[in-house]
């Protein structure tokens, strides 16, 4: 089994892991909701309990029912439900706060800020649902901070309670919230969410353009890929991929555009021309990519120099390792 197959299998495991994290998130939300209702029902009544804390339970249920295990949906539902729950609670406190003592005034502004933050959280959820994440660094940091505070609270309670049943009765809400924040960090850190911020989406489009037109400043490939590349252009190495239409032989070699892996697809056509296209993967659609008509390829001082029809040339640095930038190369030599 080669390394790429192991990598592909690992990617599948990661997908399954993230799918299971969405379920963990849903369970944590439902547990939190149930714990809040259990602890507050005698204090604030059933109706207000349902309004304040019922939404996270319903949203958790919807996440479990989602057969696609959509990360965006799970993160969005979390933010919207928790934000809504807080908005209703703090909003009600703001409206009913009628005292004029300094404490009441401070409380009023504190609750007002929390209400605005809850609205902000709902907006984040809306953005997640639209697959357009907001900057995730602060979200992760603040979620970790909350998780750390909750962990401290739980550990403190663990020390002070000797009866485990009593401990769980008192701290079930905090434990559920702790897990909820941890899972939230995991989901927000997922590739899907990270790659859907405004900046990441722009980077994706720009990278696709750069890869397509092949103007990467540091195009490189490993020695065996370089041998295959040059051999195919010279007609010494046969194609190893299925062909159709005017293509008589075809091969693909992996190269690096900076730190990004790309695929150089080489085709020999029935008209005698050799054409190269660069893409992110060998599968999927490819819509009128930039075509480089290759005339010849040769080795020159640790590089392949490719001459295109029309007089332009290109150069691929030959790497010893996938990641042999200068520092790594120095360390391993």
């Amino acid at each position, binding site marked *: 089994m080669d390394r790429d197959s192991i990598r592909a299998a690992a990617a599948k495991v990661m997908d399954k892991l993230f799918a299971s994290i969405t379920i963990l998130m849903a369970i944590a939300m439902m547990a939190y909701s149930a714990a809040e209702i259990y602890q507050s029902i005698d204090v604030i009544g059933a109706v207000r309990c349902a309004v304040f804390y019922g939404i996270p339970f319903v949203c958790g249920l919807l996440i479990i029912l989602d057969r696609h295990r959509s990360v965006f949906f799970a993160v969005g539902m979390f933010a919207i439900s928790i934000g809504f729950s807080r908005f209703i609670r703090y909003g009600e406190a703001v409206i009913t*706060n009628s005292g*004029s003592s300094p404490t009441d005034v401070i409380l009023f502004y504190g609750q007002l800020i929390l209400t605005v933050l809850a609205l902000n959280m709902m907006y984040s959820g809306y953005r997640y649902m639209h697959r357009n994440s907001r900057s995730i660094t602060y979200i992760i940091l603040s979620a970790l901070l909350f998780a750390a505070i909750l962990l401290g609270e739980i550990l403190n309670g663990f020390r002070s309670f000797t009866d485990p049943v009593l401990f769980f009765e008192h701290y079930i809400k905090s434990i559920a919230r702790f897990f909820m924040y941890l899972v939230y960090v995991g989901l927000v850190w997922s590739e899907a969410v990270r790659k859907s911020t405004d900046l990441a989406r722009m980077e994706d489009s720009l990278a*696709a353009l750069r890869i397509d037109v092949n103007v990467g400043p540091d195009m490189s490939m490993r020695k065996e890929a370089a041998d295959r590349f040059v051999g195919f252009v010279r007609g010494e190495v046969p194609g190893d991929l299925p062909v159709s239409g*005017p293509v008589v032989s075809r091969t693909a070699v992996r190269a690096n555009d900076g730190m990004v892996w790309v695929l150089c697809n080489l085709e020999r056509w029935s008209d005698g021309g050799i054409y190269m296209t660069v893409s992110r993967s060998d599968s999927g659609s490819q819509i009128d990519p930039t075509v480089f008509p290759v005339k010849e390829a040769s080795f020159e001082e640790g590089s392949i120099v490719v001459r295109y029809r029309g007089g332009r040339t290109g150069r691929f640095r030959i790497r010893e390792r996938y990641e042999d930038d200068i520092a790594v190369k120095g360390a391993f030599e």
Partner: protein
Amino acid sequence: MIPPKTLKGLFLSVSMVITAAAFWIGDGSGMMWDPVEVFCAFLMVAGALCVARISKDSLRDALAVSSMIIGVYLVLKSISGFELDDNSMFMLDLGLSISGLAVIFFGFALFAGVEYNVLRIRFLSSAVLAVVLMYLFSQFTMNPDIVSWFSDSYMPIIVGIQSLSILIVSLERTLGAYGTMDSIEASMGSLSERMLTMSDAYVLREDAERLASALGKDGSAETATLRSCSFGSRRIRASSADGHASVDIIPVDSVYDDPIVSMESVSASLSEKEIVFYGVDGRRIRLLVFDGIQEDPANPKILGRELDPRNLGSWIRGKLERGNSDVGLRKTN
């Protein structure tokens, strides 16, 4: 029927008249007939009439003129009210006069056609409005008597109305350049329209067969839907006339009907998984082929229905307008 843009401009001019009247009649200083006060009130009313007239042609110019007038008004009012004995009032008036100068400068630059960021106007007017609302709300919670509350909050209400009118005008999308990120995103969007980043484009098998056969039959043309879960749908047209076969990809909802991609096609190769249109000099369009419409794994699928949250707004509007709509919700197997 007055166009919405003119209505926004009219609201701006009415709020200027209200501001002028309120500060002239009701500031309680007993200086109603002071020449500066009379001139300020006259300036605002005359400015409001100008704004109302200009808003029929250009909301941007209306905002510019109103900014200049409000700026002059602020400067005159604050300079005439300078109290050298009272430090805090002096600082407040000084701050207001400097703000007035800044507003005049902004209005002038806006009128001169300088590029500006409408987001800052939105942010500033929203911030003033939020402060006013918070003040009004806290005043009311501490003093629920409506009459005394109104007499205490008279001036903040006027400032709030003025800020609201500027906010409403600045929310007009056609007003001008918006945020840098929005602008970059729009540029990226148009680059992505070229579809270099689209790797999940597919056609249905029956459409692929029609398109392939159209290329081989002189005088025939077929159009089908090119689908993508990530990038939405486009149209693909294959035609053959006078011995020249071509494949075009056309946007669905663009104001132009020009193809995004147009390729003279030599042949089409249809296989189990893909269809490839080959052009000349190595050009090609490779599309995936599926028997049915594909589910988008990033969308949630609950109880057999795939929900696209990005279409939720359209779906709700459709429900409200027509009683039922299948936009946004898709029944899948």
